[in-house]
């Protein structure tokens, strides 16, 4: 068969930081959505990105998830250059967003099998069973996703994102549209699938985001205002800074 080269083996550098950004910018015309962002994130960390609406959080995340190209600068994920080999990066990342990315008219199993085949997972059936088990949807495998509740859909979405065993998982406002109970279940699930993966979450819920993270980053007008490991952060000062940046207005 053509194109059966393995992308999983050997590609990621063992010691490389999970994320390594250098002067990453996204510019269109005179508008700088993301401006000169530089930081490193070690493997296994949980990064929360905070910032007001229009600060460029989502734009930054979409660039890291290879859905949009940075205008300038270089970004490496697991040591692989985002611009040079986006396909290699894609094999190592997963995305969970407020959009489920699931087909409403296909069953839970069909949705996962579709992803499995596209990614080229060899032990697809086994893996799908396992993931359905993990998110407690085994009994619903034959049902079309349209009939699922918001929380169930979100769980299946997690299963889909983790199916190919990504090293870095992006969470784009995952709590929006979830009731408090579903949020709890979601947090538990994320904790269960954590393992040694790196997580990057975009959120505007300061308390929730700060509770789960190991590193925190504040973005305002596309620029990094603060970035540190949680252990080094004084929460009160951090909160004050966050309030200030939100007050700084919406671009």
């Amino acid at each position, binding site marked *: 068969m053509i194109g059966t080269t393995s992308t999983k083996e050997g590609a990621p550098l063992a010691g490389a930081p999970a994320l390594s950004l250098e002067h990453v910018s996204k510019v*269109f*015309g*005179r508008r700088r959505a993301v401006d000169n962002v530089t930081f490193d994130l070690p493997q296994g960390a949980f990064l929360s990105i905070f910032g007001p609406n229009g600060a460029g959080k989502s734009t930054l995340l979409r660039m890291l998830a290879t859905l949009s190209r940075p*205008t*300038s600068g270089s970004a490496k994920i697991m040591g692989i250059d985002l611009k040079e080999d986006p396909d290699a990066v894609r094999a190592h990342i997963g995305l969970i967003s407020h959009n489920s990315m699931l087909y409403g008219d296909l069953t839970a199993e069909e949705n996962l099998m579709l992803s499995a085949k596209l990614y080229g997972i060899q032990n697809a059936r086994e893996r799908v069973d396992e993931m359905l088990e993990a998110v407690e949807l085994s009994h619903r495998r034959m049902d079309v996703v349209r009939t699922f509740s918001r929380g169930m859909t979100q769980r299946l979405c997690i299963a889909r994102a983790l199916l190919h065993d990504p090293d870095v998982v992006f969470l784009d406002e995952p709590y929006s549209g979830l009731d408090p109970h579903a949020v709890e279940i979601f947090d538990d699930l994320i904790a269960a699938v954590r393992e040694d993966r790196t997580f990057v979450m975009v959120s505007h819920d300061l308390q929730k985001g700060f509770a789960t993270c190991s590193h925190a980053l504040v973005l305002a*007008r596309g620029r990094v205002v603060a970035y540190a490991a949680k252990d080094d952060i004084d929460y009160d000062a951090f909160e004050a800074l966050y309030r200030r940046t939100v007050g700084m*207005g919406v671009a």
Partner: protein
Amino acid sequence: MGKDGYRSPQTGGVLDRIAPVVTLIGALLSTAGFVLAFTLAGPVNGATVNGVEVIGGEMVSNQLLFSQKIFYFHMPVAVTSMVMIGFVAYFGIRFLQTRDAAWDERARIAAGIALLFVLATMFTGEMWERFEWGVWWTWEPRLTTYFILMLLVFAYFVMRASFDEPERRATFASVYGIVMFIDVPITFAITRIVPSSVHPTIFRTDSGLSPDMLLPLLLSLFGMLCIAYGLFRLRLRAQELDERVEHIKEQLDEA
């Protein structure tokens, strides 16, 4: 935005400095073409009349067609519109290569000027057609393909109006600008593909145009191209100024 030595196109350079001169030359050339179309270019013969008459030392046995004079404007304006659509496609390609908003801006302005010349072509063609054929509209091949070209330019602007996100709008518009260009060679070549067309084939080695007709035609053609260039640079600079004002306003907001 330096990558691989790429430089974003600027306004205010040489291209803008020569613009007023080029516009002036365009006005002079098209005026000269206009005058020569009536003085130098010989009349075109129509239906035969019952008899012969000597006019200016020549035997004339046909009706002399005055309406054909429209041709000396109609054709240059039409060619200019197609050239402008060609530029829309070119700027579209440049945009997709570089993702530089400046190219999208140029594509949009070129499309605006293309629309202007398309409308001018339709007006002049309409006048000619109304007199010669006695109808306002007929589905003749060249007419039809050109009409489609006009609809494509309309569609280009309708599409731009349907998207809010600037980068997405620019990408889609560039793609459509490139695809739209396909109709230009078709329109241009339709008189060869469907020979029944009433439009003569002009650009060929035996075009049947005598030098006295070719001269005013070419003068008008280059004149129109120059005018299109002048208008393009004018509009571009005005647009750039607009954007600078917007930018200053935003900066004042932040300060």
